């Protein structure tokens, strides 16, 4: 193989890999089941990617219930539907045994101490413009209805789709003037 061909193949490989990242996420968004979850946003900055809203869920910190959870352990959060169209965490388990009318969300134990388990499910970052992200972070969860659309696979993997504030996509949302 000539050096020219080798260089061309490596460049093509890089471009295909980037395209694959897009195709994979598009597939998740289209093929997986979409559910809504309530969130509380924070506003940090990510290396190479700019500002994002860090989303906290009702299952981000759970009670350990006397069990010994190890850092890095894979767990499944059992979600039950609520009357308002959202899904809420009922319990956390180590096994993937999905019951009817349930959605399981796969997560990883980040820390476990003080009788609490801190989980990460991979849907904690919602990227926004550098001007909009701090605005969203300042909104009070008590005053605004904050939800996300999440695509979930049968084995509990999740992909974040859209953040809504009072039913409006977060990018288009204008906070109410102070009362």
């Amino acid at each position: 193989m000539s050096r020219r061909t080798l260089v061309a193949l490596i460049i093509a490989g890089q471009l295909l890999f980037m395209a694959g990242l897009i195709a994979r996420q598009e597939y998740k968004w289209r093929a997986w089941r979409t559910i809504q979850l309530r969130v509380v946003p924070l506003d940090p900055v990510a290396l190479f990617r700019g500002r994002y809203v860090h989303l906290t869920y009702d299952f981000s910190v759970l009670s350990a219930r006397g069990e010994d959870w190890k850092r890095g352990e894979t767990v499944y959060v059992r979600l039950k539907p609520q009357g308002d169209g959202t899904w809420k965490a009922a319990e956390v388990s180590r096994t993937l045994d999905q019951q009817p009318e349930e959605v399981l969300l796969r997560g990883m134990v980040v820390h476990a101490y003080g009788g609490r388990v801190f989980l990460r499910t991979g849907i904690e970052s919602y990227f926004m413009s550098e001007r909009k992200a701090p605005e969203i972070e300042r909104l009070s969860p008590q005053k605004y209805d904050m939800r996300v659309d999440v695509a979930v696979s049968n084995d509990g993997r999740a992909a974040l789709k859209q953040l809504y504030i009072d039913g409006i996509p977060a990018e288009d949302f204008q906070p109410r003037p102070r009362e």
Partner: protein
Amino acid sequence: MNSSSTEHLPPVNVPLLLGVLGAVLLGEGVMLFISSNWRAIPMGAKLVLIFGNVLGSYLLAYRMKFAARPRSGFASALFLKGAIGYGAGIFLIAQIYNFHADWRAGLIYWFVGALPLAYAVDSRPVLALSLGTLVLWTISKFDYFGREVFLLLPWLGGLLVLAAVVHWARLFPRFGGTYFMTGACLILIPTLFLSWGNVARGWVGFEWSAEFQSLAVALAGVYVILLVATALVLRTGGDRALRLLVLFLPIALLPTIFLASKPSREAVGDGFLLLVNLLLFAECLGLIFLGAAGRTRAVVKLGGTVLVLLTVCRFFDGYWYYLPRSVVFLLLGLSLMVAAFLWERGRRKTAEAES
């Protein structure tokens, strides 16, 4: 070091240097521009911008590199810009599609994509970029409480030093320096950190994560493979300095191997700290000799810089009493003066004999 090194250092390639700096600035500019997540740009346009940046840089670089009259310096800068754009593209796609789960994987994808390109286009800046992403991944992946990462970095450094020897002796002699400087920094800086009394004592009895243990075992496996490769390569090529380097390399990793084996707090006492300090002192001297033997100024400067940092750290380190510190400083200082005198005398005699 490489026996083919010349007596006179090559002139600095200013156009290449400016081109590389320009490529880095352009790459950073594109990254910042898309990171700003400017709402006026639709998603499709952002993707076109990301792919266009990578493809455009590579196409231009390809044309310059393989033209009838190649412009290698500028092509190298453009390949670097393309490789930066590739890594930036991974993270910016992650931004557009809200990936979060282990974002550090992006750094490994970057490393895996850029490393073969460095060899294919024979570009040291692209090699430095790919090694940088590997180091950044190790730091970001194992930064819990700052413990695991300071043990893993020297081990990774050891692998890179071995890789440098293989490159110098046989593979790509031009790449040896980049591997060596990265590897040496990864060994020296964490060891300098460990030479502080309270820091080293903070390591003992720590419960290592499963990921750390897996990676440690993997690194040990790669080390053995590289050691065998190095031994085979040095059997047929390479000079005495390289053989000594391979022989003494494991000694430089001993403090971190000792700490990883979870010793008791008492074990990390004054004796351990004294040995770490003396070891680092010896490593710096070794680098200076190695650099002088191969006439590689950067290696001499690295050894000298860390040696100065070590002495400054110990001068202000309140962990030790003044009296023992003064005795060690006096003894080491005197030894260096005697060594300098003997070396200079030997050099004069050689010069006189030659004339």
